[in-house]
């Protein structure tokens, strides 16, 4: 075998070695990452993000009613209705609802009536959720859709 031929075959060999190693390693990484796809639930078994909270009559004007099981507060002024989250943006505790706003029992964060932070460690305002009248005349909340704070729904 001439020197030149053996060099060429060495080149080809090292290229194939590198190529197949990279391919093997790459597929191993992709398989490992596939586990995360598996672990991310497509459907959750907990509370649905969209649910009914009953007829608008249940919320008299001027009332701020907390629905603790849903972690929301329903506020109504006249014909305008809004749904504000009661999950503290700091570390996920449930904030208490008062006429003057919200206060978190865990680490002392305070919010005004619209959910803006007025005191404490909370980094951002409480989100507002989309609320609509469903065809059956009941109010339907979707906590997966956050809307601009201050935008009310007219009933």
């Amino acid at each position, binding site marked *: 075998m001439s020197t030149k031929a053996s060099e060429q075959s060495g080149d080809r060999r090292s290229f194939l070695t590198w190529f197949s190693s990279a391919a093997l390693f790459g597929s191993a990484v992709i398989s490992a990452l596939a586990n*995360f796809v598996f*672990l*991310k*639930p497509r459907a*959750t*078994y*907990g*509370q649905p*993000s969209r649910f009914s909270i009953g007829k608008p009559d249940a919320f008299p004007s001027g009332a701020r009613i907390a629905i*603790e*099981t849903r*972690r929301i507060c329903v506020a109504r002024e006249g014909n305008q209705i809004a749904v504000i989250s009661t999950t503290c943006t*700091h*570390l*996920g*505790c*449930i904030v208490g609802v008062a006429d003057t706003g919200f206060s978190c*029992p*865990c*680490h*002392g964060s305070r919010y005004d009536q619209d959910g803006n932070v007025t005191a*404490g*460690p909370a*980094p951002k305002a409480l989100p507002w959720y989309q609320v609509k009248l469903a065809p059956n005349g009941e109010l339907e909340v979707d906590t997966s859709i956050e809307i601009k704070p201050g935008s009310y729904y007219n009933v």
Partner: protein
Amino acid sequence: MSVKTALAEIPRTIWTSIFRHSLPSSELGQAQTSFTNFFLHIHPVKVNRHTLKATYTLGLGLFSFFLFVILTVTGVLLMFYYVPSTTQAYDRMLDLRGSVAFGTFLRNMHRWSAHGMVIAVFLHMCRVFLTGSYKRPREFNWVIGVILLLLTLFGSFTGYLLPWDQLAFWAITVGTAIAGYAPVVGAKMQFLLLGDTTVGQEALLRFYVLHVVVIPLAITLLVAIHFWRIRKDGGLSRPAEADLAPGTEAVSVQVVAAPVELKPAEGKQAFGLMGLVRGPFTKVGNTPENTVYSWPNLLMAELFVFILTVAVLLVISLMFHAPLEEPVNAMHPPNPAKAPWYFLGLQELVSYSAFWGGVGIPGIEVALLMMVPYLDRKPGGVGRWFAKERLLANTLFVTFAVLNVILIIIGTLFRGPNWEFVSPW
């Protein structure tokens, strides 16, 4: 051989088929015992006298390991009665207390050894740092140690949720919310960990699987590598004097390692084992004068630490009960809601700045810890506590360690309702 003799000798033949040697009565026997027994061959036949100095290691690595063993045993026993279900978990806790033999006691042992392991692993890290033991060639073993510390914290954290009482629920709600502050991946990570948007059945199942399978397996594997590398990196770190025969003085010899090129010769080429071993290994410096046999010296030291661990744990578990609060009420957080104590330093920081406390500072701290042996490469001061040459490194480390401990103490004892400053007295 008659049948009668064969029958009569059955006990002895079975015994000798299991144990190759009788209890050693000579040095050869002592060496063979360590060498041929599966459970003992993790030890070298002889160890440096310095390795056995209790004032040097304080036995902290062994304490951590034995606590892990106790956690595994008590954990497996508790698994026989535990159901990772939001409707049953708390009742099973009450059953452990009320109707399972030794139930309370086993749970106490498991709980207190988990806390103990967090403390022991942390102190072990302090010992390794303050004696400069992470230096060449032990850099990578330090990195494995840091990963083991993180796994210990994570193992303890995942176990925290399992009783499904108020303490567990809100500690994990707060703890995973801290993780959610990581940029880009934070919210995804939190969702992946909880399997849902809030702590519920999915989170309980996930934490259970991580706690009883994934993390213990990872710890077991890394502990095995950690131990194996102690041997391969030349045994426990020790000062240079410990490698000298007593009564001799150190002579500075500059060894220039000439790279030996292994040229494939024509035909067959045989390499001796010594040709493959590079760098320091167990035999280097271990002259007969400064070594002792592992059997019984090292074994006795280990047995002593084990008995001490068990004894202290038994006393604590008999005196103090593992906490169990009211069952989960997802609508009424306690005031204040606190993460597990080892994360309260972080929570204290989070109360000032969510990002820096939850992600920024801990991330930098972990990265710095991992990089320690690669940043500080000066060879001096290995094998002695608080060596003068390492004054700067030790001061920095102690400052960081003390700051973290102070933050944990503030978060644990000095924070009351609404996270306001309270006096514990």
